[in-house]
């Protein structure tokens, strides 16, 4: 799949391994909706007027418009910036094929969780800002004519953190894939479990894996694409146990956040640590696929499973 060596190598420069560690636990600052997901940039780095920004990988100053036109891939170093969920859908699916499901389900502040502000207010503000009810978007769509169930974990909504609703929607999406015998494709960008929902968030790791287990039982097919960044309880659950695990070049992927590790060990982390290339080298993912090749890659993979999956579906349903 490494068709484009320039992009796949995604050369990383200094400061990279420490980059954005603070987002590990998914607590983005709230900002105005629109344009680029500004979560990736600290205020300092954000150029006046927002027309320009500094690449977090190569530090090159980029014209924002140009970055967006290039699918949010740095024109200078090929770094794959985080993509807002809606934009991702447009990048992956055939035009006009997206039919979103379960969009109405909203988060609940069941613990009455309050840090600086009540969680319920935080949700309300995020819903207003993003125009979506939760961090997971899921629905039906087609990739080069091939029907799939697609799920996108959107970093722009509370750092793509997984709480009850994200876990539930993932499980529901997988159940739609089972019911309608479609492959399941999920893109992740997430800081991990959502702290504000406490242990209920932790249980979503088990819930999503339970759903995938059922998909496996009926011979269903699943692909996960880990994008920048994917850490914590998301990496440590459904994202790592789909049939195929892909990653975008340069994506930060790990269990513990780099800052946590650096603090614990009190030492510098090796260059490229926890990047997609590092994981590929250690045998943890199937392949790295550049963004502009993603659609056709997914379609190519689906070619290998057309008709094959779900052969045993009827038998499995009898067991249910």
């Amino acid at each position, binding site marked *: 799949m490494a068709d484009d060596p320039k992009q796949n190598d995604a050369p990383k420069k200094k400061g990279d391994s420490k980059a954005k560690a603070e987002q590990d636990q998914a607590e983005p600052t709230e900002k105005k909706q629109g344009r680029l997901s500004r979560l990736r940039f600290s205020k300092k780095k954000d150029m006046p007027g927002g027309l320009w920004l500094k690449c977090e990988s190569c530090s090159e100053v980029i014209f924002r418009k140009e970055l967006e036109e290039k699918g949010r891939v740095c024109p200078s170093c090929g770094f794959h910036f985080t993509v807002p969920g809606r934009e991702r859908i447009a990048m992956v699916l055939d035009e006009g094929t997206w039919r979103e499901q379960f969009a109405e389900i909203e988060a609940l502040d069941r613990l009455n969780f309050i840090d600086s502000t009540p969680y319920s207010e935080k949700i309300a503000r995020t819903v207003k800002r993003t125009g979506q009810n939760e961090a997971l978007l899921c629905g039906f769509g087609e990739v080069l004519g091939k029907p799939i169930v697609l799920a996108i974990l959107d970093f722009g909504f509370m750092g793509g953190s997984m709480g009850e609703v994200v876990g539930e929607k993932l499980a529901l999406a997988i159940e739609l894939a089972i019911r*309608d015998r479609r492959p399941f494709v999920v893109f992740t960008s997430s800081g991990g479990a959502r702290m504000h929902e406490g242990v209920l968030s932790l249980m979503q790791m088990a819930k999503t894996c339970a759903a995938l287990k059922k998909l496996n039982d009926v011979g269903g097919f699943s692909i996960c694409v880990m994008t920048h960044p994917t850490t914590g309880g998301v*990496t440590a659950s459904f994202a790592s146990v789909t049939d195929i695990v892909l990653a975008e070049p340069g994506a930060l992927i790990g269990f513990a956040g780099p800052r946590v590790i650096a603090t*614990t060990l009190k030492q510098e982390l090796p260059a490229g640590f926890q990047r997609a290339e590092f994981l590929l080298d250690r045998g943890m993912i199937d392949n790295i696929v550049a963004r502009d090749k993603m659609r056709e890659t997914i379609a190519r993979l689906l070619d290998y499973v057309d008709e094959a999956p779900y052969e045993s579906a009827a038998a499995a349903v009898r067991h249910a």
Partner: protein
Amino acid sequence: MNDRSKKKGDGSPGLAFERPIEEIEAQIAELESLSLSTRLDISSEIEALKARLRETIDKTYSELSAWERVNVARHNKRPVANDYVTELVDDFFELHGDRTFGDDAAMMTGFATMEGRRFLLVAHRKGRTTKERLECNFGCAHPEGYRKALRKMRLAEKLGLPIVCMINTPGAYPGIGAEERGQAMAIAENILAMFSLRVPIVAIVIGEGGSGGALGIGVGDRVLMMEHAYYSVISPEGCAAILWKDGERSPDAAEALKLTSKDLLELGVIDEIVNEPLGGAHRAPSVAMNELKRVLLRHLDELIEIEPEALIAGRHTKYRRIGAIEGRFPTVAPSLGEIDVPPRGAAAPDSNGSAPGLTSRVEGADGRAQRRGGGAGPGS
């Protein structure tokens, strides 16, 4: 285990609430030794002090904050996996290694026999002495630990042995080697695989239930918690550092996270709380451990009666619906054309009084909306 001679100066600021109790205990010890050496009859004074001790412990432990409970769960006299093996198990044969990379001392696995019941014991190992604690990274397992656990659990499945998991970890180890060897992947594989194991699984949080590191051996047909254990998505310290930007706010984070056994039972995440003796398991370890044994054997005896297929189906349903409020989410039946949508307004109101207002519609793949009892879907 029962060495309580020098319990003073535990050093943990989170255990300040224990000080008045320890003072009375020290006074009692002093009077007892005095009565031995002088043959003075001060039994009534001792009795009075003992009554005061019970009262103080009772009052203190009935009012423990979440943060104080976390510190009880971490108490260095609290029973750890090795103590349970020594105290409760009639035979234990340890099985080492993941046969791929190494033998993680933070994860202990082996065949165990308890009152005639044979099972596989999988347990985080914390150790008690400084040397032991260092050897097993304070109970933080590496990927090879999780892979060892999975390998032995698959063996148990083959042999038809139930699995008992004792959880006691601050979290999976955060380190370079752990990441290199796929910490996240190892935990994820375990969670997924535990849904397929065709033997009963009982998981018990005996101390710290730290996040994914706990869940990596924590999927069970029954999940129990010792009364003063905690189980959380993140450590209070980690949560305080991220959300409060201040590690000193750990007590607030502990409170907010709802991580005590009582909270988890109310949320529907655990099945049963195992009561600890007054003043916590560290005051009477043997009593605490034997209470766990009693509860554990009851669950094992119930579970071994269940057919593997039913066991697996039940485990799936348990986690598929875990902690969920009845009627809050729509459902997708696993066969074509069957969808359950909760009726309007069926979702339970949240504590703020605002209903989530769910009016879910589940579309079929052909784009037609389908409703419960409504038009049949394709193929039915």
